[in-house]
């Protein structure tokens, strides 16, 4: 049994796949004259490819069609975004989501009153008045408590921008997908 090196095998494979230049092919064919083992290996490789190519088609014993129930169960959340009725209204829903985000974070946050903002930051809920007894220790604790909570929230001025960006990206993405789907469907009619 002849032994052909892996590099020679890759060369004859490249020749069989028409991937060698004319010069390389000629050089390899010259070697075939001097090295009959290599020529045999090339012939066998070509035969092997033809044999594989001639392999008969194998068919499943049963049809692999999916029934409606299986399809219904297989539908994931992505299907809601593309198939009717949800998919038809997706760009409009995206736009509405964008406006809601803008309203909620853009305008709604600015409407919060000053005492509410203080409460949000974890300060004492007692009304601030000149008559209220001032406990320096409590005031210190309140300030200390408010720091981590305030630090964990994003900057209020960034929220509207973030909301609008998410909404716009969602709207643009869904509109692009919807338009592509409609275009293919129009051309297929």
């Amino acid at each position, binding site marked *: 049994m002849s032994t052909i090196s892996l590099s020679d095998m890759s060369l004859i494979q490249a020749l069989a796949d028409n991937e060698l230049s004319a010069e390389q092919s000629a050089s390899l064919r010259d070697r075939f004259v001097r090295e009959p083992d290599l020529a045999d290996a090339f012939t066998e490789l070509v035969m092997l490819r033809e044999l594989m190519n001639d392999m008969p088609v194998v068919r499943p014993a049963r049809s*692999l069609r999916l029934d409606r129930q299986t399809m219904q169960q297989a539908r994931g959340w992505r299907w809601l975004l593309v198939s009717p009725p949800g998919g038809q209204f997706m760009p409009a829903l995206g736009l509405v989501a964008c406006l809601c985000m803008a309203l909620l974070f853009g305008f709604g946050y600015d409407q919060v009153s000053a005492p509410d903002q203080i409460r949000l930051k974890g300060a004492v809920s007692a009304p601030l008045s000149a008559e209220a007894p001032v406990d320096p220790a409590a005031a210190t604790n309140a300030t200390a408590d408010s720091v981590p909570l305030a630090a964990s929230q994003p900057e209020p001025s960034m929220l509207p921008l973030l909301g609008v960006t998410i909404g716009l990206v969602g709207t643009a993405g869904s509109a692009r997908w919807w338009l592509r789907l409609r275009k293919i469907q129009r051309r297929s009619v």
Partner: protein
Amino acid sequence: MTAPSEDQILVSAALAGDSDSFNQLVERYQNRVYGLCFRMLGDADAAADVAQDSFISAYRHLPSLRGEFRPWLMRIVANACRDVLRSNKRHPSVSLDTSAREEEDSLALQIADTNPNPEEHLMRAELHRTISVALLQIPPDQRTVVILSDIEGMSYDEIAIVTGANIGTVKSRLNRARARLREIFVAAELFPTVRRLIANDEP
């Protein structure tokens, strides 16, 4: 702009809610899908199950399809076969008593030959059986590549998409797979039979 292929039309119709369109895709590709599963796994029942699961998975993820349907589907199938082979390796479910002959019989039963000459028919059937069994003896990643290239007739680019490997890796795996198959064929002294068959084919 290029016109949408028939696959794209069927995919968009399926996404628009026409379930029959997806079943048309199933009918179009079920032999290829089953063929890949069968040649990868060497077991008819397991191949049918994996092929069915692959179509269900393809349907589930259809909304995320970008590009051509065929390589995308074959990638799902190749991954499913790889998972089954890995799982079988970890938890072998086939009895150790199962002989190679049984595997060969299982393969032979699947392959129909329409050659009218009985002797040649037998020779070809034996040859195809030997190839199928030889395929099972090479590593799965090499097996996938050689099946897709030499049986399914896919290009290197398509195979790279299906396997998720780059073209250099595809070529290297193909090279190793063919070298290994050639070794098996030489050891089994099959090439003289092939030469005889080719000589019979020539006028």
